[in-house]
């Protein structure tokens, strides 16, 4: 059969039940403040890395929580751990530890480096 010139598209839905949320669980277990993020975006607004790239800790946190790990995995190594986000977070999220734990979780659970 020759090509139709189009194909079935991949769904954009976050398939919550099928997604692997083990990374987020790994982080939340060790750093409960991870759960308290209200996605205000303060961290991303002040982010040293975010000034140069599309790195967004806010987005990264929510994607991990929804099990959309791929984007987070690509992004997570960009953080320079400078710590500005910790100082501005209104919720007291220990953001640096979130990053470190996320890197650790990818390494341990996904068996690959970030």
């Amino acid at each position, binding site marked *: 059969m020759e090509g139709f010139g*189009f194909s079935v598209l991949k*769904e954009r839905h976050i398939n919550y039940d099928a997604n692997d949320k083990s990374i987020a669980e790994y982080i939340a277990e060790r750093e409960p403040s991870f759960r308290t993020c209200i996605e205000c975006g303060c961290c991303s607004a002040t982010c040293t890395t975010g000034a140069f790239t599309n790195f967004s800790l806010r987005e990264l946190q929510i994607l991990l929580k929804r099990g959309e790990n791929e984007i987070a995995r690509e992004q997570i190594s960009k953080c320079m751990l400078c710590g500005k986000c910790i100082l501005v977070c209104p919720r007291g999220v220990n953001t640096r530890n979130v990053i470190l734990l996320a890197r650790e979780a990818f390494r341990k659970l996904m068996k690959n480096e970030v």
Partner: protein
Amino acid sequence: MKSEGKKRIWAEYQKEIADDHYFYVRSCIRQSFFPGSEQFFLHFLGDVLGKDIYENPSHTTCTGIGYHADVVPLSTIMTVIARHYALMKDAGYRHIVISCVTSFGIYTEIFETWKHFPEELEKTREYLYKATGREFDLPESMTHTSDIIYKFRNEIADRAKYRLVNHETGEPLNIVEHIGCHYSKMFPKYGVGGAEFPNVLGGMIEAWGGNVIDYPERRHCCGFGFRQYLVQANRGYSLSNTTKKFSSMKPYKPDLVLTNCPGCTMFMDKWQYTIREMEGTVYGENGESIPVLTYEELAGLVMGYNPWDLGLQYHMVQSEPLLRKLGIEYDPADKFKTKDGRQMPLPQNLINA
């Protein structure tokens, strides 16, 4: 699922359906692709029930596809619709019966527009008068053809030769009802049973002995989407929506998809072929695809008409598996013969054949 809950909702969305004296407007797609449907409708109302149903040869397309594809402006389509009303007025009818769900959506949308923006109605009167010298009245009732069949579903059941049950097991057939989006999603009050849980097809299926399936993506679009299928590059989007719908209904093992919209009938039928070609996926049982019929075709089957007279062979997905389940006798040799017995060229790539 609580059926009382649904019945309560249906009770809230009961529309006035005229009893007689219909002014009929055809559907572009249906008369071309499933000609048996409209044929049966006119036959059933006129010949079987003895109703007064009239269609005017000067009636044109509603231009709905052009409108939804952004090539026909609103004022133009309003004038086209106004012309139909003028034809109706000339013929002395007040109840319009619309064969196409896209058109039905256009009629209801324009009706509501004129209601909320009377100046648009006045402008339209002026345009129509300037263009054609005609004048028009608003209809007393607007019904879709499926509304009419719904109204007379019990009359059909009374005359039924077959019930929608598997004649071998005695189990009711599992039937997916798919309602065209423009039937009631825009204006729930114009649909039998409203928008969330419409009952127009479900009522027929139940009256004729079948089992209605409620599956998660019941509300989802068939994938038609004017702009999507018109442009080849966008057709993947149309196809994906169909895929989503069929994947969702598959676990319920449907024997049939019943639709009330020409676009849905066409796309749910033809995209099944495309998906099978592209990805090798079929959604029915035993490696077969699911037949997609219109309510008139189904009514005809139930009443014992010859499936080939109803035009079932013009679908991409062939209905033989359904016919076998229903215990309907048919002659495969007649399938592609003209009325006077000449053999037509045989189409290729038919599914389920």
